[in-house]
């Protein structure tokens, strides 16, 4: 029963082939010769072998690569989303003075989440066929550290800390650079 389900399509086409062949001979005027042309026969066998190879190996391999790419892209989108949430929190709190401890803790927790998602992503790429992705780990970590330093560096944990004591771009540019690298990674993951 299990095999019947698995090979349902193949079985269906075989039956259609037999059915069509049976009727063609009886109800049309196509004349079948008794002698088989060896070149045509070899051609038919070769075509069948190629069709089987395509169906059994190349198509599943392409599907598996597509699934892997989609998985990587989904994970990278999640990373980008977490970075965006951190940026949104920053935008909301840029003018707030002083920054309260709950907000500070929220930044720290979200950066931890971001860091762990990146770590998880690169642990997956170790098994990937796309070696370009794993080679980007150091670049992404550097950008993450720059982004985290821009937000939680300096006197971030000081009681009277305010973001506004520094220009907006000091925080905004590291976020943009980090996001840009993640987008580059998405493009690379899709190749």
């Amino acid at each position, binding site marked *: 029963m299990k095999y019947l389900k698995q090979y349902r399509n193949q079985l269906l086409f075989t039956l259609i082939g037999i059915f069509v062949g049976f009727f063609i001979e009886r109800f049309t005027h196509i004349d079948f010769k008794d002698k088989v042309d060896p070149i045509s026969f070899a051609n038919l066998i070769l075509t069948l072998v190629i069709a089987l190879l395509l169906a059994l190996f190349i198509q599943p391999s392409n599907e598996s690569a597509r699934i892997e790419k989609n998985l990587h892209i989904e994970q990278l989108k999640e990373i980008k989303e977490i970075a965006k949430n951190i940026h949104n929190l920053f935008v909301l709190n840029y003018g707030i003075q002083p920054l309260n401890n709950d907000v*500070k*803790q929220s930044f*720290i*927790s979200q*950066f*931890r989440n971001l*860091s*762990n998602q*990146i*770590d998880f992503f690169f642990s997956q790429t170790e098994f990937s066929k796309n070696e370009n992705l794993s080679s980007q780990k150091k670049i992404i*970590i*550097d950008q*993450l*550290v720059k982004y*985290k*330093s821009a*937000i*939680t*560096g*300096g*006197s*971030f*944990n*000081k*009681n009277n800390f305010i973001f506004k004591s520094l220009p907006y771009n000091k925080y905004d540019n590291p976020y943009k650079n980090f996001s840009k690298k993640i987008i580059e990674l998405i493009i690379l993951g899709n190749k």
Partner: protein
Amino acid sequence: MVATQEIISIANDFTNAPGARNIDEGPFSGEQFLKDVLKPAFEKAINVGYDIVIDLDNTEGYATSFLEEAFGGLARLYGKEKVFEILEFKSEDEPLLIDEIKIYISEAEAA
């Protein structure tokens, strides 16, 4: 028998809520951790000849300033080669913290 390794757990031996960079910026700062915990343990490790494992787990998380002041500060005092030779890190809560700290140590002398 001489110990070959000392484990410093930041959560158990210092605080589970690491603070700011400098002592005058609030409690449990990176500077205080360096002064009270890390530097004495590091000097002892050099003299006796063993490694130190820094356990980073079970805290509420780290601001960059704490980590840079503590570990970058240690590298500014003893040189990054010596720090890399003696310190090892453990972090299951946030494994990339180890890469982050290594960047602060590597860049400390140039700072």
